[in-house]
């Protein structure tokens, strides 16, 4: 079995209102010097697959087809 972590983040230039709100909340808690905060998503996926290259290709296809909206989001796949 292969385990993987997929990270989905907003592309540069796409406004992230939730990240902004978190940024303000952190400043409110007294964390000075917090620059930009961007919010994203993490998916931990288990695959019944032993071929790493095949797993990676499948995971990328999953991102393109469902897990990320590539109009606004980037993704990265890491086998763990």
């Amino acid at each position, binding site marked *: 079995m292969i385990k993987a972590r997929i990270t989905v983040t907003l592309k540069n230039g*796409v*406004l992230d*209102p*939730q990240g902004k*709100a978190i940024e303000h909340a952190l400043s409110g808690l007294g964390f000075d010097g917090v620059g930009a905060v961007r919010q994203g998503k993490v998916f931990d996926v288990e695959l019944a697959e032993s071929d790493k290259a095949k797993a990676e290709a499948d995971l990328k296809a999953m991102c393109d*087809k*469902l*897990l990320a*909206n590539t*109009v*606004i989001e980037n993704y990265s796949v890491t086998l763990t």
Partner: protein
Amino acid sequence: MKSAVVLLPGLNRDRDMIAALTKISGQAPATVWQTDTEIPDVDLIAIPGGFSFGDYLRCGAIAARMPVMRAVAEKAAKGVMVIGVCNGFQILVEAGLLPGALMRNTSLKFVCRQVKLEIANANTMFTRRYQPGQIIRSPVAHHDGNYFADADTLARLEGEGQVVFRYAEGTNPNGSINDIAGIVNEQGNVLGLMPHPENLIEAAHGGNDGRALFEGALGIAA
């Protein structure tokens, strides 16, 4: 003119859409379930609003991958009119039938109020019963209506007259780019909009500003 309404778990404006289409066209629309792979022979397919699949992952993302949406895409490719309202709009962009994306409102708040819409293009099957530049009222109720598209896509939409509805008179409720409230595809037969015209079609609603959209699409005399 016949219509069909797409049903998915978590939608909650389906009854409103069915009621509006029934009242305006004089016949009840067919209903198609998420797992249906065939849609009856109709002129207009409507995808109502709500929170399909609990808005899990992204609004409309799961619904857009259900079998019924492949059937909708096939019909759309043949020129059948498709209208997606609110979650229906989100589903259409997630399905790739319309460009861009709908993001969280910049206020981070769910907005439920009446807005004003400018008819930015009256030369579509959906807006032909309105005057160019006409301002109409429409209810909105959403958390993720903030339309976004990259600069190239936006320029194309604006240049080709694909922006059909724009929030007017400072009533943009969600931070949508260029005040975009509704767009059509290149062919002009697929419309997505965040506002709910189906909720303003008769006196009991407090007005009928949304009625002409369905009358135009269904080719019904006003």
